[in-house]
């Protein structure tokens, strides 16, 4: 139990991932599927950010170690740790995963946009956004009915 509490963020990652996937696979409404997909993609963000956090680390913005803030931060740390690792007194969290996730968020938003655009066209063409109704309509009318060039 304490293991779970210690790693609560990873628990959240798993819950979001599985929840999102479940919504994608089980819901019949296409918009809900997109929502599920978005939730699923959020879990990766949380995952990366969890990786980024260094215990005792502060936001990865350069701080002058000799300044007041720098020394205040240094005071909170274990001196032996600082000495052993030769740090200049400030520990930063890893900024790289944040950058990666920014990129992934952009990708996610673009995907969402394209998906919703397709959903709009689907609504125009089929009149419904329910997957099974669309499938039924396709079975009924085997001949293609397009808007035509």
């Amino acid at each position, binding site marked *: 139990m304490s293991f779970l509490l210690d790693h609560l963020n990873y628990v959240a990652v798993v819950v979001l991932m599985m929840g999102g996937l479940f919504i*994608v696979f089980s819901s019949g409404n296409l918009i809900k599927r997109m929502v599920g997909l978005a939730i*699923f993609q959020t879990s990766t963000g949380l995952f990366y950010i969890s990786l980024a956090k260094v215990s005792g680390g502060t936001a990865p913005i350069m701080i002058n170690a000799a300044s007041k803030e720098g020394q205040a931060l240094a005071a909170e740390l274990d001196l032996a740790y600082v000495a052993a690792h030769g740090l200049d007194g400030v520990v930063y969290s890893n900024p790289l995963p944040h950058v990666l996730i920014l990129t992934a968020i952009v990708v996610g938003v673009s995907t969402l946009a394209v998906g919703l655009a397709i959903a709009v066209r689907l609504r125009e063409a089929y009149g419904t956004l329910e997957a099974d109704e669309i499938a039924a309509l396709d079975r009924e009318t085997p001949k293609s009915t397009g808007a035509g*060039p």
Partner: protein
Amino acid sequence: MISFETLYAAPLELIKHAPVLLVAGPLMGACAAALAPNSRWAWMISVAASIFAAWMALCVAGEVARKGVVDYAIGGFAPPLGIAFRIDWLSAMMGLLISFISVLAALYSGHALRAEVREEKHGLFQAGFLLCQAGLLGVVSTGDAFNAFVFLEVASIGTYALVALGADRDRRALPAAFNYLIMGTIGATFFVIGVGFLYAATGTLNMADIATRLVTLSDSRAVLAGFAFIVVGLGLKAAMFPLHGWLPNAYAYAPSLIAVFLSATATKAAIYLLARFLFTVFDPGSGFAHLFLVWVLAPLGAIAAIVCSLQAVFEPELRRMLAFSSVAQVGYILLGLSIASLGGMSAGLMHLTAHSLMKAALFMALGGVAILLRARTLADFAGAGRDAPWTMAAFAIAAASLMGLPLTFGFLTKFRLIEAALSANQIWIVAVIAASSLLALIYVGRMLEALFFRTPAPGAARAAEAPLGVLVPLWILAGVSVWFGVDASLPEGLANSGALALLGARP
């Protein structure tokens, strides 16, 4: 081996930056095409950008021929901190393949778009096409794992939109595109989660660097989890059985240009990434990777080859039949790769090349002929062989390559696959290839019989010969299939070098 130096003559500056210009060219072309004043301009920009990319691919290949590996640090930031393009023979071969197909597809697009997509969308369509191209070329050139994800998604998002544009002809393109989007995004997200695990374990994103650091880490749970996620994610993108459900509908209802382009390049880029991770990043000799190759990749490839060929046999719609055939052929390629010997991987890569060439030709021929017909099923295409002899002759040549008839490239790749399997004592693979070849004969035979030997129903719309703009790229593809069928030294050399690069790039 052709000496690539003689094929290009580019100023030194251009050669120095060729790896990134390979991607940047189509990217900028996409912007230009989006702003093009009319359809004709968009087409010309598309062709020009594709030819430029092909030229750059040749330059890069020449450099690889000279130096073995080309490293290019983006922005001057050296790896492992910066993002680097790392182009060895495998990347060069894939780059050449993708850009060559893109040039032919761009040439074909002039006619295809006029017939299938609304005029006002042509500029954006060509922009999307060039974006896809840029993304795919980036996937095969990059040496950074996360960068691969980015380029993969650049290409994929473009393809989702482009597949959906087939709705002008057939509204079933829309659910197909939506389904493709869902599954593709899940695949890409799995991939990025896997990369995250690898990053957590090794602290770096540069593929060569990860490989070095994984040598000591192969038991780590995080690495295993990462491996699993990466493989499943890329398997979704590569349409590995059973994750292939999106492919048949997407290829069947997309505009014919997209069917041509995707069947020849999109899954191939994902297979490239899969191979890259399996053999370069992870050590194929290590316990779990080897287990995966033997117990997952090979059986799934075999099942794909047989089950999807069976599905193709019973499929009435012609383009869906070709799509199922594509999944089966991907199974062949994965079978070849799973025989982790030099011969097996080389055979798999050769078959990758052969399949790109023949599938592109098949879809192009169908697209060229089906313009006037709202043709879907075999019955709709009946007698097209007599009405459009030149187009269908090229189709027949590509179909012969698909069947694996002698004097075509497809026969030689099948020869190499069986040879590799026998050399590695994998007799069951030979049986699988034989069985699926038989099935391929059946469904291709059905296609050819309908096209050439059946008379069309009276009053049915008749096919017409495709215009020159379609015949030229089509016959180039068919001709190359025959040329390589008689003298396959070029693709064989490239495939061998690629396989060596994959195996030899172990640190």
